[in-house]
């Protein structure tokens, strides 16, 4: 597998993973896929003082990705019925968080 050098988001690291191609998705879905993958990664790297801090962290990250809560709720429903979209999230998650 090809080793990729990452320099995005201030990170600089090399991992063995394939960069998921989600360019065929709408710009909104691309942001949602990236957000969901990043959130599922971030939540496992943090210890939160209070359970409500998890929700606050997710809202803050959502804002950073320009994702509206209602749009995210629709996306979550869509994920349940769209295997290809779930695959994109899974690929992006493994790319961000796989070790």
């Amino acid at each position: 597998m090809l080793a990729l050098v990452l320099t995005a988001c201030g990170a600089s690291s090399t991992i063995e993973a394939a960069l998921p191609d989600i360019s065929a998705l709408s710009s909104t879905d691309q942001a949602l896929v990236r957000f969901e993958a990043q959130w599922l990664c971030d939540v496992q790297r943090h210890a939160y003082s209070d359970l409500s801090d998890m929700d606050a962290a997710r809202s803050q990250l959502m804002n950073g990705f320009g994702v509206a809560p209602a749009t995210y709720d629709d996306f979550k429903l869509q994920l349940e019925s769209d295997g290809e979209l779930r695959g994109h999230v899974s690929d992006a998650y493994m790319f961000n968080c796989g070790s």
Partner: protein
Amino acid sequence: MFAVLIPAPAAFAQSGELQLTKSEVATIVKGTGGWVALTWTAAGGDIAGVRMTVVSQTKGVDVTYPANTGDHVSLWDNDTLVDGELDFTAFYLDVDETVNGKDAKLRVEVEMVIDGKRATDNFTVKVPVVAHSGASIEQVTDDAGTVPAGESRWVEVAFTGLAPTTSNVSTAVSASGLEIAYPGEGVSTSLHHDAQLDFGETDVVRFLVDAESTEPGNYRIDLETSFDGGSVPGVVSLEIVSSS
């Protein structure tokens, strides 16, 4: 009279397997506690009725569930994973000052429904534990694992943030008898996700160990991790093992 149509339950066509994406939660500082998460997925089919109990295998580590589930925990969104879906479960860990060592262990016992039949599975999860020395960040990893002689491997060292925000974290590495390289041919390595550690956040630095011409044995790697306002030294061990 009205005809009441009750939707049929979702069909689960294939047998799913519950998988844990990473068998380690975020680091907890001794004498404190925190809500931690584990991320799960279903592979090869759908899984319903997911219900988990988390049992501490380490004295001095206690588990508490969210108030709405009481004696167990389920997934965050609901209790179902369709094939390929990711979701997480959250629970609170309280780690006593007296906990020995740097790793605690949990056993996650899962009850679920696969193909309409009840199923169970167990998973072992590591809880990295650190003592607070007063520094802004704490090194979590003492043992970086193994690299086969004759090969090059990226190794990871984890750090946890203990200050509200620690910025511009970077680590320089030195090791007698080992060749080290950094990502992007740099002169140091930074954290994987970004160069900042928030309170309670765990992230890793990665560097390449070139063992192409290194003799098998145990090696000491010295770390100097700098950040805005300070720096901390550290040590991690690495074993170069004979290629089979």
